[in-house]
């Protein structure tokens, strides 16, 4: 019991720190890609900017829109934030550093992270704002569509490793990372694309498209509730990168350095890749995105699954 409490508290601490760091990193990377400087005033190269911003958000007034469905509206941020925090409970940071190694770990993560879409839709519905509602609807459609290829690529890893436990999957990669095998490399590519859509990032950011919808489902939120959406967004990014690391890149395994370092290096490397893509690509259209999910990614991942299954039992 005590163990679980300490683990939970440290996970929450890790999440807030990492979200702050990632917000700063994203601002810096985007600035340098656009030949700007980014935040420079607070701390060394603006490194304390996120702390200043969160202090500001803490002190802001909480404005409730007059036509809002109050209960749904105020519960939504929790429905978005809590599942991503809970997903961390089965992520293996190193050989021993894991809160609880469930024997259905990957299944648990996949199911708990899909609760997020409920929170997003609640936020869109409860705000009583057409832009929020559109954002919420788009988000529900998008996340449910991309869940299919995402899970199909995860199934391939489970078939290869023969276990659902996250530690078990990492240990199964002792001979070589899964991304080095051709069929799993293909699955990794599909996973990367669908996870970008899962966390609502460019080029699949149509639920919160700033130029069309204001900010989509979190248009009406202020202060701490808005900060919770923001933290959830960046933590979600870390979650999908951590799962990708665990499933395809050998988790915490690596020479010389301790496991925790290898894990963090890989996770933040994937996060940086996602930021790089974000500041390169424009946004896709809604119909293009749905076509891509149902007509391209899903058939390809099913084909991949069938071919690899045939190869395994042959």
């Amino acid at each position, binding site marked *: 019991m005590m163990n679980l409490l300490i683990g939970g508290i440290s996970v929450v601490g890790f999440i807030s720190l990492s979200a702050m760091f990632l917000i700063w990193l994203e601002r810096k990377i985007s600035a340098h*890609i656009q030949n700007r400087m980014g935040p*420079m005033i607070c701390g060394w190269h603006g490194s304390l900017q996120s702390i200043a911003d969160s202090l500001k958000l803490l002190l802001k007034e909480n404005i409730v829109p007059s036509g809002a469905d109050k209960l749904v509206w105020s519960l939504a941020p929790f429905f978005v934030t809590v599942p991503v925090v809970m997903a961390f409970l089965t992520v293996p940071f190193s050989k021993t550093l894991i809160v609880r190694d469930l024997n259905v770990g990957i299944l648990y993560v996949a199911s708990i992270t899909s609760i997020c879409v409920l929170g997003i839709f609640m936020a869109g519905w409860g705000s009583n704002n057409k832009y929020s509602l559109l954002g919420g609807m788009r988000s529900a459609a998008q996340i449910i569509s991309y869940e299919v290829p995402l899970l199909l690529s995860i199934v391939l890893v489970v078939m290869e490793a023969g276990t659902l436990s996250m530690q078990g999957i990492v240990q199964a990669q002792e001979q070589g990372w899964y991304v080095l095998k051709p069929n799993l490399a293909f699955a990794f590519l599909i996973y990367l694309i669908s996870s970008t859509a899962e966390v609502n990032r460019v080029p699949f950011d149509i639920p919160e498209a700033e130029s069309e919808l204001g900010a989509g489902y979190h248009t009406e939120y202020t202060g701490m509730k808005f900060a919770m959406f923001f933290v959830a967004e960046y933590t979600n990014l870390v979650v999908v990168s951590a799962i990708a690391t665990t499933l395809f890149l050998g988790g915490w395994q690596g020479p010389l350095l301790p496991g925790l370092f290898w894990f963090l290096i890989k996770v933040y490397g994937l996060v940086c890749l996602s930021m*790089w893509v974000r*500041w390169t*690509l424009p946004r896709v259209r809604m119909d293009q995105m749905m076509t891509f999910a149902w007509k391209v990614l899903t058939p390809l991942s099913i084909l991949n699954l069938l071919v690899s299954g045939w190869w395994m039992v042959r």
Partner: protein
Amino acid sequence: MFRQIKVIYLGFISLLIGMRVTAQNFFAPAVTLDYPRKKKPMEHNFRGMVDLIPPDCVICYQCIKICPTAALFLSHTQKVEAEKKVKEITKFTFNAELCCFCGLCDEICPTDAIFMNKLYEVSAFSHDQILSIDLMNPNKYKHLDSNYSLDAEINDNKLRTVGIAPKPAPAAAAVAPAAGASPANPAAPAAPGPTTSTATETKPADGGPTTNPTTENKQPS
């Protein structure tokens, strides 16, 4: 089917090309400045606020006459000192609100006493702080920019100002004949006075670089 595969392939390739471009820009130097802390020096032909070197002014009222917006005000008294008439400025003010920054006062001044400095952060806290700026005061623009210094502006104006090329150009012209570059040599002794080649304002090749260009380049017609 084949077309779709081609479209996906091309999309993937264009993603890689785009990522290469953004990566190149990521490592390229930033084009913006860390502004309030780092500042860019203004160009040599930048016209900032009107500034004055009080001892150089001969009280000829040329600047007052030419100013199209009547932004300048000048008055003086006459005294007799040791059997000589001496003029003394009693009031010389500048109204930054009326000024259109045309630079005519700078050009007309026979002694180059009035000039335009390189000040560009010119917002004041109150309206009447810029209505009547005392040009005789050496700290006249301290309330706009705390780093303002008259000596630095005068020095800057001597080195690089409207109509005069930046300092390195005459130095290069002086070095070129001494180095004995063969194509330049026959031309140099054949041009003793102001010729057509030196008539353009921005090339003070054999005139002193600190004199006023409007009085210097009188073309022989």
